[in-house]
């Protein structure tokens, strides 16, 4: 064991060949955060199913559903996967690559819409 690690810090050694020291901060409030996140996810899902049967326009519903899906994804990643409490450098490494996904969505849907219009005109 390397003795010169800071012993005031809580944590553990992984115990494998790397025997890396992993800092650990346990917060007793965690459990109430978990249950709050659960209720938020549940209410959003029930709300989604409920508004699916209202007479709102299809386009408006689609926008609402996609926004709510991203909200749910935020709560799962931030609190269940604990990313909100990880270092910012790690969060950037994980989240920034998804800029490419936004680009892929824009590209694919543009192409698909174009082919769809092509069908309508020439078929």
């Amino acid at each position, binding site marked *: 064991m390397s003795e010169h690690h800071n012993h005031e810090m809580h944590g553990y050694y992984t115990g494998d060949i790397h025997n890396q020291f992993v800092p650990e901060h346990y917060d007793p409030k965690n459990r109430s955060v978990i249950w709050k996140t659960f209720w938020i996810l549940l209410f959003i*899902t029930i709300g989604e199913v409920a508004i699916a049967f209202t007479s709102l326009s299809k386009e408006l519903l689609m926008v609402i559903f996609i926004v709510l899906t991203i909200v749910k994804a935020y709560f799962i990643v931030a609190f269940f996967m604990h990313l909100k409490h990880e270092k910012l450098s790690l969060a950037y490494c994980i989240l920034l690559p998804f800029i490419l996904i936004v680009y892929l969505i824009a590209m694919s849907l543009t192409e698909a819409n174009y082919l769809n219009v092509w069908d309508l005109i020439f078929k």
Partner: protein
Amino acid sequence: MAAEATLNNENSNSKAWGGGVSPFGISWGKMMMWFFLVSDAFTFSSLIIAYGAFRHRHAQVWPTANDVFTHFPFVHDHLPLAYVGLMTFILIMSSVTMVLAVDAGHRRDNRSVAIWMGLTIIGGFMFVGSQAWEWYNFITGTPKGALITNMGEFYRFPENAPSLHEGGHAHTAIPDWALISPDHKVISDKAEVERIKSISKPIKGANLVNNEYGHPLFADFFFFITGFHGFHVFSGVVINLIIFFNVLSGVYSRRGHYEHIEKTGLYWHFVDLVWVFVFTFFYLV
């Protein structure tokens, strides 16, 4: 190897990226799990984007999910979204039990970890079973089926298109002998119905080639994406089972930390995360 290790230990109090300490402040195992999940998320994103692209490509003839997934166990009414809503609830619930197991691991409470892991596994099995039931109903199809013309177009019977009755499209009642065209229009002209019937053969259920509910690509994407997701859930359950038996035999209480619970937990939450997107893009929009 030994020399390297010594070197790393000597440098451990130097700058964050100098080696010896984790610049991210997490274990290497958790970091690699995160990077695996990023790559897996890219795979799922590509699949769902491909689904979206083909759906836009065939927007006029794409099936309405509320006409396809309307079953609920022991109930004979058309109940769109009810069963998949229940499946979503089961998966969110098992995500909660998983994160409570991780929390118990931070407290080094072996007994609680075992209980929460056990509940997570039960939730996982319930979800996989629900998905099998959903597939069974989709593959079996409706009692009456649909018609496929020799041009490969699918014409449905009014009773199999409940969304047309509810959505206010048809203010007058749709006659029993009418047909629903691929682009969701009612064909009630008797001669036209007879003409379509004369060039059609009956078809029942969905598979990779035919789909009585509409465009076959809908079935292809449904089977591939929910199948790929279900495979993830199943492998998650297997991994959870292995961890569960390790917890029971005291592997982690002897080791002094429960990092394995955190890693398998990350994977399990990711599976839940993917389902949130599948639920939206297959069932809601």
